[in-house]
Every structure is written in C-alpha cells, then in structure tokens.
C-alpha cells in the first residue's frame, strides 16, 4: 500500500479555473497524484468534481491553470490525447452495446483494427490477472451491472493506463461487488497505477484511498490522509460549517399530522434508479419538513411517488389527513389540496415552448376552475398568470412569453407562485432554490415560511443544507433509498447529517439510520 516516491507526481494540477456562464465551477484548484496512489476526490454534488475530471480527461479546456504529466507541462486537448498519455476513465454510466459480445464492445473502444482472436485471449488474461472474471463471448445484455463495469475496466486496462479515473464506481454495485472492485484497485495500485477515485461515500474513501482532495463550491478546501481522519471531520470539510442562523417560525404552532408516509417501499422503474426502502415520515400542519441527501439516493423516486406520477403499490402507504391517497393520480391529489414544485423547472414543472398563460393552466386548471363548459377560459387563465407574476415578482415582459424565455430564478418563482396560489394544504418542493440567484432564493424561502405560518404543511427536498437549516423545523436524511428518522433542527448537528448523507452506518451513534431490512 506504500506510495512509491518518484521524482515527479504522476499528475499535478495547478490553479485550474473554469468559468461557466453564471457559475465559477472550478476556482484555482490544485491536485497532486503520485504513482500508485489511490487518490479520492471528495465533494458534494456541484462541488466541481466533474468539471475538474473533464479537464483532466480532455473533455473540456480549463480557462486557466496548468497540468503536469510526470512533471512535464502538458496540454490535454481531447479524450483521445488523454488516452494516449495513459489516462483511462470509467464513467458512472456505461457506454456499451447490449446486443454485442464483450469482446466486440471492447474492440469498439480500442484504437485501430483488432485481431479478435488475440483480443479475446488478452481479455481473458487481463481479467484473470486482476480478479475480474469476464468471458469475451458473452452478450452484454446477459451480464449484471457489476460485470458490465468490468468490461469498462478491462477495456481501460488493455491500454496499460498509468492513471485510472473512476466516477462513483460503486454507485451501481452491490456491497459484494464493491469489495471485489476494491481488491482489484488495490492490486493495480501496488503495480504503480494511479487511481483518481471520485465519491462522496466516506466509508469507502477511508477504507480504500491513500490521499483525499476535498472540494466545496468549486474551491479547493484541503488535501488530507483519509485514513487519519474521521468520517466526521471529512464530512465537515465536505459540507462546511458556516451555516446561517435559522429564522423559522415558532415550533409550538404545529398542528396535527397532515401527511403521513408509512412503510413506503417501491422498486425503481429505472435501471439506474434507487429503490425506496421502508420510508416513514409525517408532516404536521404549519410545519416545514426538510429532506436532505446527496442527489441520486432516492429523491427522484420519492418525489414521483408523492406527486402521483408513480403510483404506490398500496394506497395506505401515503395518507393525507388520514385518507389513503397512494393510488391517486396527480390530478386527484391536487384536488385533495396537494401542490408540487418539481426539481426540473424546464420540461417538468413547465412546458418550455408554451406561454406563461398556458403554463399557469398546466397544473391549476382544476383547482382554479379554468375550464368553462369544456373550453379553456382564456381570460381567467391570463388573469391567474398575471396574478402569479405580480404577487411573486416574476420579471417578465408579459405573460404571453414562453416559459423558456425566463431566467431560472424567475421561472422558479413563477412555478412556486402557481402552486402556492392554489391554496394548498400541503406543498412538496424539490430543490426550491437550485441554481437560483440569491435575491430570488430569499423571496422563495420567505414565501415558503409564510405559507407554513398560514397553516400549510411543507415538504422540502434539497441538497443544500444551508437552505434546509434556514427554513425547516425538522430534517430527515435520505441515503440509498432509506430515510432516517427526522429530528428537530436544534437537535441535529451538521456532522450527524453529513454522516447520514454519506450512508455511514453502524458506528453506534448513528442509530437513526433505519436499517430495518
């Protein structure tokens, strides 16, 4: 496991900066990977990990900063150039042809023409050498996800990489498959291959990696030895502790339970989706419940089953004021007083090509009675759209403009406004201020708090802990399709939340992870 000290690090980045319109994705980031080192790149979603990796793999060009390969300044112009240097990358989502064999898929990813017989021999050799059993003649569609990942790894290994980049490789693996992968990675490391390992799973990083570089909000925070850190200290660096003071309302005003979710389990319809596992929570009248968690841990699935886009297997899984609603579709749930603000503003919460008037109609036609003898009442719909624009300070030159012409923050205000003006008893909001400028974010937060003060129940799903602490009364954490018990925000520390988000379990103090199987 010792990292060999060569004269130069295998890869060194100095001052990498990348500006996207409106976002500084990477701000002066340094990174150093020695040969044979397993180096973790740790950070929340949006911390700038993928941008940095894309710069290394030649997918995009940084605005400024230098890349040194074995000590030589290098310009990596394309993934092709990266591969010829000896950089291989395993993506989170595989690019494989299901209807072709393992060997054919590997041949497609290799430069030049391949001798198939020889390639098959090489595949067997490499896969046996590294404990990645793989048969070249098997068809890809017959393989498990773990086996498919092996194809990608073997494809990289056949090109004798010096640096292997892995983007959250265990997110699609079973624990057993993950253990096997770690063995392979340790073996590679012992042979001098450097590995850049991207993850937010603290347990894995502590077990596997020699070094870790932590990013937060596009900035380099620290480099450390994860084996000497605690999961708590890593979480602290990853999430940050400078949280603003909450200004939520008096908790004594909470009323009876309005929404109750009871033992909700659901298998995801998506291959890369997360199965929900025995989710339990409730939201009281006048209360804001926050659900924290790193993206891709079941939030999408939970929101879909709450909105009715996906029906629950048992109607009693979801109760609104004691009435089972698990088998009602979105229209009927709205009729019962539930409103939704989905994560994706364009294309989910609104139809981008349609006018604001039409988008006002989209979810409110029933509750606002915008149909008149079967025909759309244009005047009434326009008035409603204007009301939203006025009350929620949506900056637009007119309600006849397309939703796609609005800035992200203004469109979000429009959607939040549309849902809130339907006087919901319960509103479910996903990532209320994601990608929204500070001014609009403050407006949206205030609107949420005001609504709760009027007695409505609010469920907020967000990755932004600052936001959740600012507006919620209680917080629960979702990780790998399971939800922790919720706690009053005064009883929660940022470290505990960080640990729960990383899916750490079993270390005594984290009893709240419901590992009821």
């Amino acid at each position, binding site marked *: 496991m010792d990292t060999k000290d060569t004269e130069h690090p295998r890869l060194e980045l100095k001052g990498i900066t990348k500006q996207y319109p409106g976002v500084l994705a990477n701000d002066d980031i340094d990174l150093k990977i020695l040969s044979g080192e397993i180096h973790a790149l740790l950070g929340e979603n949006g911390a700038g990990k993928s941008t940095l990796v894309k710069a290394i793999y030649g997918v995009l060009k940084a605005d400024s900063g230098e890349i040194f390969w074995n000590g030589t300044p290098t310009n990596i112009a394309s993934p092709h150039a990266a591969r010829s240097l000896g950089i291989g990358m395993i993506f989170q989502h595989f690019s494989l042809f299901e209807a072709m064999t393992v060997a054919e898929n590997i041949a497609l990813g290799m430069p030049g023409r391949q001798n198939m017989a020889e390639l098959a021999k090489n595949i067997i050799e490499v896969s046996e050498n590294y404990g990645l059993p793989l048969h070249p003649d098997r068809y890809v569609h017959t393989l498990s996800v773990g086996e498919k990942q092996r194809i990608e790894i073997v494809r990289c290994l056949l090109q004798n990489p010096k640096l292997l980049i892995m983007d959250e490789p265990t997110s699609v693996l079973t624990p057993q498959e993950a253990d096997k992968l770690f063995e392979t990675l340790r073996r590679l490391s012992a042979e001098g291959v450097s590995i850049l390992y991207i993850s937010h799973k603290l347990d894995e990083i502590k077990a596997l990696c020699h070094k870790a570089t932590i990013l937060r909000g596009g900035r380099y925070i620290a480099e450390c030895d994860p084996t000497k850190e605690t999961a708590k200290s890593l979480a602290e660096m990853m999430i940050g502790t400078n949280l603003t003071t909450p200004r939520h309302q008096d908790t004594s005003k909470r009323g009876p339970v309005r929404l109750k979710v009871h033992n909700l389990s659901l298998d995801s319809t998506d291959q890369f989706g997360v199965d929900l596992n025995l989710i339990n929570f409730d939201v009281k009248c006048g209360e804001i419940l926050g659900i924290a968690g790193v993206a891709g841990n079941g939030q999408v699935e939970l929101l879909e089953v709450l909105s*009715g*886009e996906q029906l629950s297997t048992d109607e009693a899984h979801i109760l609104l004021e004691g009435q089972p609603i698990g088998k009602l579709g*979105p*229209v009927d749930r709205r009729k019962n007083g539930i409103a939704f603000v989905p994560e994706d503003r364009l*294309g989910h919460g609104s*139809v981008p*090509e349609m006018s604001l008037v039409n988008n006002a109609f*989209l979810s409110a036609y029933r509750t606002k009675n915008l149909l008149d003898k079967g*025909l*759309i009442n244009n005047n009434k719909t326009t008035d409603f759209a204007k009301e939203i624009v006025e009350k929620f300070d949506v900056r637009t030159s007119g309600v006849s403009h397309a939703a796609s012409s609005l800035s992200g923050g203004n469109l979000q205000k429009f959607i939040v406004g549309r849902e809130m003006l339907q006087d919901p008893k319960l509103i479910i909001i996903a990532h209320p201020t994601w990608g929204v400028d500070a001014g609009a974010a403050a407006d949206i937060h205030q609107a949420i708090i005001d609504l709760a003060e009027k007695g409505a129940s609010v469920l907020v799903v967000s990755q932004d802990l600052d936001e959740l602490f600012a507006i919620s009364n209680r917080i629960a954490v979702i990780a790998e399709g399971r939800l922790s018990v919720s706690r009053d925000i005064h009883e929660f520390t940022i470290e505990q939340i960080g640990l729960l988000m990383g899916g750490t379990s079993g270390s005594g103090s984290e009893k709240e992870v419901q590992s009821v199987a």
Partner: protein
Amino acid sequence: MVYITPILALTLTILTGMLLFSFLGVDPVEALRNFFIVPINNQYGATELLVKATPLILCAIGLSVGFRANVWNIGAEGQLTVGAIFGGALFVYFPETESVFMLPAMILLGAIGGALWAAIPAFLKTRFNANEILTSLMLVYVATLLLSLLVHGPFRDPDGYNFPESKIFTDSATMPILLEGTRLHFGSIIALLAVLTTWIMLAKTLIGFQVKVIGTAPKAGAYAGFSQKKIIWFSLLFGGAMAGLAGISEVSGPVGQLLPSISPGYGFTAIIVAFLGRLHPVGIIFAGLLMALTYLGGETAQINLGMPVAVTGVFQGMVLFYLLACDVFVNYRFQLNRFGKAA
C-alpha cells in the same frame, strides 16, 4: 422562422424542377406553366383542385394531431382504405335503400372503420410498446389487400362482367355535388368542418392542450397528471377517423364505387401536407391545395408535354426533402468538426 421554411422549400423545389425539366429537353418555363397554372386556369380546373385537396386535408388534419403528440401515425392510407370499406359495405349490402340516412350512416361508418384500423397500432403501442410507425405502415398493405380481396369476392358487382368492382353507388349513397357540371362534392364541406373542429379542439379544449403538452414536454404532462396512453389512443383514433372520412368521401364522391385501388397515395402525401402546413389547421389547408396541384400538374404535364407520370411523385418528394433539409439548417448551425474535438 418556422413559417419561412415552407416557402424556402417550395422555391428550391421549383428551381430544381426547372433544372429537371431542362434536362428532359422541355422548356422549363413552359413546363412550370403546364404544371402549376394550366391545370387551374378555368373553373373546372379550380374545382378539381378542391376535389383532390379534400382527402389530403382530411388525412393531414388527423395526422397533425398525432404528430403534435409525438405519435407517428404513417398509416393514414390504410385507415382511408378501411374507412372506404366500412362505409362502402353499407351500400353493397343495402343497394336498394333510398333513405336519406343512407349517406350519413356511410360517413359515420367510414369514420368508425378508419378509427378501428388505427386502434390496432394504438393497442400495440400502449400494450406492448410496439413502434406505431412500423405497425401503422404495415397495416396499410393489409388494408389494401383486404380491399382487393373484397372487391374480387363478396363485394363484386354480380352484373359487372367479373370486373373486380362493386356496384356503382346510387344517388342516395353519393356525396351531393356542390356545383353543377363539376365534381366538387359535399366531402369538401366535411373537410372544412374537420379543420375548424380540430382548430378549436387544439386551441380551446383540455384534450387539445394535453396533446400539445405531451408532445413537447412529456414529463410536464405526467406532472400535470395527463395520461400518455390516453393521448396515444386519442390521437390515433382521431387520425384514423379523419382518414376514414377521407376514404368514404372518395368512394362516395369522385370514385363512385369500390375498386381495388381507390387512392393515389393520398394518405402518404398527407404526411407531407401536415408538415408543409406546419401542423397548423390553416397551414394544412394551403399545403393541401398545393399538394393537390402536384397531382393535377403531373397529369397536365403528362398530357401536354409527354412527361412521365412519376413527375408528381418527384415533385412531392422534393417538397418534403427540401422542407426537412431547411428545417435542419434553420434549427442547427452547420459546423465542420474535427474528430475528438466534440463536446
């Protein structure tokens, strides 16, 4: 911009057409005059244009609803055929009836027949996720063969010297003529009503709104609680019914009986009409008239200049080709790209 491309496509088609004519040794200006002006420079010609445009507009207006919902019904030709079979069957089995309800019943049956034929791809799509492009297209050939089977067998006129034809429809089973001395018939009124109804449906009703939302942003549709399956069923049944109306209005109109072949590909040309008309009801009327003109122009060019009959198909093909090409260039910027520099 989207309304410029049809004009652009037509200009390019005409230019290419002129080039083509000069290669064939015909004066291009004279050829174009024969193709586009001679057919309609008298009253009879003008009404013939409406006669040809009627089935095109009926089929296209039905298809446009599906296309807006991202439901790619390519089989209007088959739905037209089955509509003609259903409507025509009523006359074949009750040829003596002189009731005033005969024609309305035939029209209704025509719509039902077309809708039933379109229900097959709708069922296959919603139940087995079978691609409606393939299923609806394959059913065209089934429908054509079915018609052929019927007119060679049970529907054949016993006094028809063994020709594969049904009895000629009697007056009570025929579309009333609107203008004495021409073939302009009541089917054109049906087409106009269909366009108006569709326009109102798309602009003012909930189902029309759902069609548009599901077509452009299916996730937003799911969010609003609109059922994708319902829209697939609706748009296929609607398109099928419209094509069925076109079918019955042809056999009860200009064709006047059931024959092995009752349409020169109206159902396919209607796809071009729908896109050339930008899927908009008013646009479809104009596009339908224009495409009808290519049928007439092809005939005139054949008679007056000795051009091959395929010239109609060539013109229709060019219009679609240029239209799609123009759309691509309007929506995307052309850029030479070296390998590996992408993303």
